């Protein structure tokens, strides 16, 4: 428990900043919604003029961009991108920290099993991501309620809950990818270039494929079809299974590699 609390404490400051970034992104975009809803046709024409790839990258669907859930899927694309950077950063850094900072001799000679150590570290990241998303969900919920009140159109709140849960799912998948990539390095000197490269690389792959193509499984950003979730108010089971498999892959790899790994002096 002490290790878990220590890890949570060490991530707290950055988690507050990330939560603020996610909330600010949602706030900035959603204040535009009232204007877009008022002049829907003009905005649809503007978005329709964009190449399809750009529309995909921006998460825009022309038909629904003027409805609040449709507009929110676009907002969520950017929020998810930011949330993915937070999660990937945590994934790349959490187990590589000791070899990078030379603190392995301190931590790994304490009377804690490596299994317990990995569990505490992964648990700490999970708590931080859950807390970040909880703050975001409350704040975005308030902003969405305000946007609905001003536009006069009320949507099923379950849609927004499910859409926000895809943020957590993508974060967990990217965390898992970050973990797995960090395990490939004996000593990872710099976290940010790796995590940013991973996020933007996979985001770009996602932008180039449609959600109905098999290639979408290459990018965690495309596992969940936000428009289908909005339409059916439910997750697709294949998306959930694939997400769980990807998360499990990184987590299992983290345990297997860390339990076997030799820890060297910096």
């Amino acid at each position: 428990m002490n290790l878990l609390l220590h890890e949570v404490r060490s991530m707290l400051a950055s988690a507050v900043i990330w939560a603020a970034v996610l909330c600010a992104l949602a706030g900035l975009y959603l204040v535009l919604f009232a204007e877009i809803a008022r002049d829907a046709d003009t905005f649809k024409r503007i978005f329709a003029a964009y190449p399809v790839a750009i529309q995909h990258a921006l998460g825009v669907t022309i038909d629904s961009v003027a409805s609040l859930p449709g507009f929110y899927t676009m907002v969520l694309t950017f929020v998810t991108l930011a949330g993915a950077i937070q999660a990937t950063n945590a994934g790349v850094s959490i187990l590589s920290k000791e070899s990078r900072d030379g603190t392995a001799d301190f931590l790994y000679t304490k009377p804690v099993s490596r299994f317990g150590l990995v569990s505490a570290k992964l648990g700490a990241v999970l708590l931080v991501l859950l807390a970040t998303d909880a703050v975001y969900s409350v704040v975005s919920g308030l902003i969405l309620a305000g946007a609905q009140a001003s536009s006069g159109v009320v949507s099923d709140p379950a849609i927004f809950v499910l859409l926000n849960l895809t943020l957590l799912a993508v974060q967990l998948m990217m965390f898992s990818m970050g973990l797995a990539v960090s395990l490939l390095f004996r000593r990872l000197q710099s976290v940010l270039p790796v995590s940013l490269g991973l996020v933007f690389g996979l985001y770009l792959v996602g932008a180039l494929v449609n959600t109905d193509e098999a290639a979408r499984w290459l990018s965690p950003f495309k596992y969940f079809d936000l428009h289908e979730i909005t339409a059916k108010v439910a997750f697709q089971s294949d998306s959930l299974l694939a997400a769980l498999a990807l998360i499990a892959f990184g987590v299992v790899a983290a345990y297997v590699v860390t339990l076997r790994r030799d820890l060297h002096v910096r």
Partner: protein
Amino acid sequence: MSVIEIQHLTKNYGKARGVVDLSFSVEKGEVFGFIGPNGAGKSTTIRTLLGLIHPTSGSATLFGKSASKNPEVLRSVGYLPSEVFYDEGMKVIDLLRYSASFYRKDCTARIQQLAETLDLDLKRKIDDLSFGNCKKVGIVQGLLHEPELIILDEPTAGLDPLMQQTFFELIAQENKKGATVLLSSHILAEVQKMCQRVALIKDGRLIQLEKISTLKANAVKRVSLGFQGAVNTALATQAGVSSWAVNGSEASFLYRGDINLLVQGLSKASLTNLSVVEPDLEEIFLHYYTPGASR
């Protein structure tokens, strides 16, 4: 049961050698020296003992248990590595409290006492500490839970001579209270001063395991001679003589073997001066580690 038991331990790093077929044990209450040059395999052995690295073959146990399989055994172990690194954003006291939290006992008074002994400011940030002060943090965090076994890997690097003395007094006190100590070093004076037994390691292999007293008794002696007239070179060929060097009418050499035979040999020479110096560990060390030298 030995506190430390190493049996046929081999560790390879790919094709590179770590340690080869190493065996020794350390008994309860003992201060055991572990000597070897850089790269000999001392840290590899210690890191295997602590479960930081896994053996290729053989075993390394603490209190009869492998630390990697039974990490609980590390509750009774204090470890001071040669280089210490800590979370630089933390204050010294917070780091020490965090370290203490792993041992499920109140170490507050002990931390204060050790910090006073070592003149360590607990309120400073790790980031602001000099290398020597960081080392002091390492000493406190290694001893704060009053471990039954203290493992020291090149412990005095970075400490000034006065602090080294304080440190060894601390270790001697812990030993007096019953703690077993494994002291790995290439600074032989500290091993000579502290240890009852010593293991010499060379190229990953154990080359000698002796009581300090036996090691010194059986080791080479440095003999210096002044001759009346020319140096008697016949002595150079006497059994047990090595490193023969002549400077004018003076000669010096290392001698290993029965001292009476040496005296008989010397009796044939006409000398102006004779000195037989008890070797210190430095000389024993050099003898063992000179490339090509053998036992």
